[in-house]
């Protein structure tokens, strides 16, 4: 036989919870299943109360008292140390995060370079500084020999016994 579903909670709360439920007494008088359920609840309650009363009369050991008091005093004496420890840890974490960010996206964080188109005068000046090369000669192959003469006249001859300065005339020897 199962106890009435509507009364189970009321029975449990009346016996263990201490609820005052006058209607319950009448129901228990009529319903055998609920009486059995109530007896079970009383038994559970009695078992645990008996166990609670039989708890060993242990006294807190002295080291619990002194140890606890010492721990508290230690904590009280060094609140700033703990505080600074957290601040240091936070600063280190922030620095690490910034480093990781910088390394992961160099294009975003690198200093901006402004690209300015060079004027012809600047290009000419830069060309004057550069040493002549085969590439330069090849680039200028389309030019007339006179123009090349003018262009090459701006370069100093390369020093050294084996290196003859290039001239427009030597272009004829080029393959």
């Amino acid at each position, binding site marked *: 036989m199962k106890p009435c579903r509507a009364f189970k909670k009321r029975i449990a709360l009346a016996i263990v919870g201490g609820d005052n439920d006058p209607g319950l007494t009448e129901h228990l008088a009529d319903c055998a299943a609920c009486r059995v359920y109530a007896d079970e609840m009383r038994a559970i309650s009695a078992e*645990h109360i008996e166990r609670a009363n039989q708890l060993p009369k*242990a006294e807190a050991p002295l080291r619990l008292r002194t140890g606890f008091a010492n721990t508290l005093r230690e904590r009280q004496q060094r609140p700033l140390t703990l505080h600074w420890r957290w601040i240091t840890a936070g600063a280190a974490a922030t620095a690490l995060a910034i480093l990781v960010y910088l390394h992961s996206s160099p294009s975003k964080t690198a200093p901006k370079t402004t690209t300015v188109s060079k004027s012809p005068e600047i290009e000419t000046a830069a060309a004057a500084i550069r040493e002549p090369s085969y590439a330069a000669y090849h680039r200028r192959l389309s030019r007339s020999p006179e123009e090349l003469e003018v262009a090459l006249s701006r370069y100093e001859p390369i020093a050294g016994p084996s290196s003859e300065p290039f001239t427009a005339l030597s272009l004829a020897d080029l393959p």
Partner: protein
Amino acid sequence: MQSLNPALNDIGLSYEPDVLARAQARDPDAFCELCRPYEDRLFRQAVALCGDHAMAEDLAQETLLQAWKSLRRFNGRCRLFTWFCSIMLHRYQKLIRRKRTVLVSDEALGALADQRPSPAATSESNDRAALLQRHLDALPHKQRQVLYLRFYVDNSLEQIAAALACSVGTVKSRLFHGLENLRKMRGLKHLDF
């Protein structure tokens, strides 16, 4: 609300409001003074929960330290001892979790060298107490909290609700479901929980 266990209420656990105020203002001496009347009883509850004096000592100390950290949140709506017990049950829950993890890994070792006394060697009352504790341990944490505070601390449902920061209705519901689970476990008491 009637008391389930008047024997637990004979201890005059009270504190001076001034001491509480000083402790809440982070005065460690005041907190030690505040805790002193509760230490024995708290330790007893810890022994009952853990069944081991060394572990109970750790649990009691952790409870008091946690209480020190969160003392400002104590609003006086429940008894201070109830508040300590609710903290202790939280810590105990963590302890059980850790213990279960250790037990799983130690199972093989335990099978090789089980040094516990045999069931026949322990007394019947100890067996029954251990069984009741295992039943309580097998309950969901919230149900265990409510049942423990009701049976072992003898708190009213209102005090339990205040200590656990929930409504009386919630406490009633947890109490009922916890009792239902205990009833089912009693029916299966031959099984080892």
